[in-house]
């Protein structure tokens, strides 16, 4: 069984992630997931590729903390977070988050909280390759 929190280059299977999540508790009644994928349209420019880079050790530690916090805060039965660090094209998977709970409200709330927090807290950066060239996605601090 794969780890519930991973940073990896290769793609993942939702069926496998959900099977692993379900295996942790027979009490799971609702599973909310979020899948982020590469769009070919970003602020008016054609994005042909996205490339990700992570501060691996810190990112993985932060994702594990995030999962632990979500399980405690929302009373989840289990949760999984997978982020790819790779060069991807339009339609490719980037990030997958799953939250399993007895009832759906907690699963939805936790899943949304995890992706919002991940974007704020996990040291991963994205570079867009467009028809104009390539550029890191930066916002001035």
């Amino acid at each position, binding site marked *: 069984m794969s780890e519930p929190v991973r940073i990896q280059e290769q793609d993942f299977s939702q069926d496998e992630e959900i099977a692993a999540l379900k295996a942790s508790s027979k009490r799971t009644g609702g599973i909310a997931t979020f899948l982020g994928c590469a769009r070919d349209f970003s602020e008016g420019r054609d994005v042909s590729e996205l490339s*990700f880079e992570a501060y691996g050790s810190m*990112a993985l530690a932060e994702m594990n903390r995030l999962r632990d916090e979500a399980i405690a805060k929302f009373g989840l039965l289990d949760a999984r977070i997978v982020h790819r660090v790779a060069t991807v094209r339009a339609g490719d998977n980037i*990030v997958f988050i799953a939250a399993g709970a007895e009832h759906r409200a907690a699963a939805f709330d936790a899943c949304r909280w995890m992706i919002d927090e991940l974007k704020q807290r996990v040291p991963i*950066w994205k570079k867009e390759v467009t028809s104009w060239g390539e550029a890191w996605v930066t916002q*001035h*601090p």
Partner: protein
Amino acid sequence: MIRVLFFGPVAERVRTREMQLDFEPGMTLHDVISQLGAQHPAAFGIVSLIAVNQNQVHDKQVALHDNDEIAFMAKFSGG
């Protein structure tokens, strides 16, 4: 020795992903920022988070220790 790491947009501006600085007793994070910031102003202009040993630090007066790992990071854009 202090290990300094750069990623993504910061690494691109510093033109390297890693530096090593000699550790000197009494050295603070502020000393490292002053030294590197003067050499790489464009890179440090987009730094919005600093981690020491993979934990975010807010206090620039924090004392460093030999073998510390410092990362100067731009705003995250994962997910």
